């Protein structure tokens, strides 16, 4: 049973369609990355799921047992630029939003202390949020999203504004979070998606162009990358390689030629044959499994 079922979800602002006909389901317990370049409609999609923005068309259905109540009870949301009441302390703010989600004062207090410790803000829980640094605010943002134990946590670009250390900390937090809730987070950075997510929703200009588990996707895009180092690059090498049918893309970087090929086995055979024929002086021949970067570029650029 899917946790959320999204059908034909569309959103227009002033006649311009920013999200086009999205269809997908989220399975419980998964960590899903909403991946796409800036302006692909990631934030708009998350805001519709969180109930801030009404779909122009289509529907969002949560699983049946939660239907009768306000779905926001089951959602934790972290906007890209979270803003807090700066006059409150970190603990006060968490208790405030927890109680808004019908936690008792006592329960909210205990949960707030626990979460502040977990995100590493235990020692500043009595400090006003106005005095927190950017990274501290981002961690408080994650804590507030988890506060009322939601079944679905949505995070909008949770790591893009952070320095490498902060990014590392937040990604580790996400890994831990996976045990407690379904996670949907948006990002425009592939590595982040690759590192923590089980599934990827790839958005481009408002359209869902790929959806699936990482394994499935990399199988589907059976592109492989071949790297050849020459002692000295023969003049006709580029032309010859480009003319091969298996080669989809070719980049030259000094003495190194990088090939994207659609069939790794075939490409290897053909290349070795040509190299022997032409007597190319190759110092390195490496077959690299297609990484997500290539998939991402391929999907976004096609």
């Amino acid at each position, binding site marked *: 049973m899917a946790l959320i079922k999204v059908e034909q979800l569309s959103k227009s602002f002033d006649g311009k369609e920013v999200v086009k006909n999205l269809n997908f389901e989220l399975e419980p317990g998964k960590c899903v990355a909403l991946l796409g370049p800036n302006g692909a409609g990631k934030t708009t999609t998350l805001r519709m799921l969180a109930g801030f923005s009404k779909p122009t068309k289509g529907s969002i259905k949560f699983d049946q047992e939660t239907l009768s109540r*306000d779905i*926001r*009870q089951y959602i934790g*949301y972290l906007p890209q630029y979270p*803003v807090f*009441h700066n006059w409150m302390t970190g603990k006060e703010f968490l208790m*405030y939003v927890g109680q808004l*989600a019908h936690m008792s004062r006592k329960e909210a207090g205990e949960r707030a202390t626990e979460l502040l410790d977990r995100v590493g803000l235990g020692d500043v829980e009595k400090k006003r949020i106005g005095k927190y640094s950017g990274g501290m605010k981002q961690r408080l943002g994650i804590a507030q999203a988890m506060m009322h134990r939601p079944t679905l946590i949505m995070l909008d670009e949770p790591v893009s504004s952070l320095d490498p250390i902060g990014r590392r900390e937040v990604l580790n937090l996400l890994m831990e979070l996976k045990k407690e809730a379904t996670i949907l987070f948006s990002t425009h950075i592939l590595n982040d998606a690759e590192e923590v997510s089980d599934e990827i929703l790839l958005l481009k200009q408002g359209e869902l162009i790929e959806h699936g588990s990482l394994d499935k996707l990399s199988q589907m895009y059976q592109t492989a990358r071949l790297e050849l180092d020459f002692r000295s690059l023969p003049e006709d090498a580029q032309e010859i390689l480009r003319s091969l049918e298996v080669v989809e893309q070719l980049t030259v970087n000094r003495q190194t030629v990088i090939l994207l090929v659609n069939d790794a086995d075939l490409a290897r055979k053909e290349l070795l044959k040509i190299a022997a024929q032409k007597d190319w002086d190759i110092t390195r021949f490496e077959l690299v499994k297609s990484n997500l970067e290539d998939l991402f570029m391929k999907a976004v650029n096609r």
Partner: protein
Amino acid sequence: MQWSVIFKKELLENWRNFKWIWVPIVFIIFGIMDPITTYYMPKIINTVGGLPEGAEITIPQPPPEQALLMSINEYGTIGVLIIVLITMGLIAGELKSGVSELVLSRPVTYTNYITAKWASTVLLILASFIIGMFFSWYYVNLLFGDLSLSQLFGAIFIYGFWMIFVVTITVFVNTLFKVPGLVGFVSILIVILIHMVTSIFGRFLAYSPANLSSYVSAYVHTGEMTADMWSSIFVAIVGIALLLLLSINILKNREI
């Protein structure tokens, strides 16, 4: 439960940003300013006015009823301005800054959100208004003669509804625009418009809440509640309820 969480948070906020101190003080100052200056004006003119020896200006001192109404007058202008200024960011400010994203991503009902915020502001304004009126009454008694407590309570009761009405108008405009400055401007415009329409079509609009100030005057002088006064109060209450309902519905159906 949820309502009281929001209500308490608003009270705490107004305490931490000192509104609970400065708003009552402003109401006290503007409440007693007119009675005091009116009382001292002749003496000041006589001492520093450079009048010829022996000449004295006598300015007739107003009766106590009139003196109390001076304070009501101040609350109708400066008071309204203060109310609008402190209410214009109540919801618009949260929507504009983005805090509302963290608050309204919880299962917060719009009814609780708006009415709790409204109630906390009404409490602050009413408390300030009542304290200010008591100070005014005290000074009027000292300087201009006796004024009964029942006259004071009547004035507070009648004019209190206008104060709440102004808060409610501003809360309503809060749900229309995201920029607090614009909210303030439009709210003031609406208050002025209500006054203008009421004075132009006065004969047909005897029950307009804008007439509450003249009913205060009538009550302070006669000590009697008339049917017109009650009708005007009733219209104010209905207006407040309708504006709140409208605000809730607008916010519910709005992109946040």
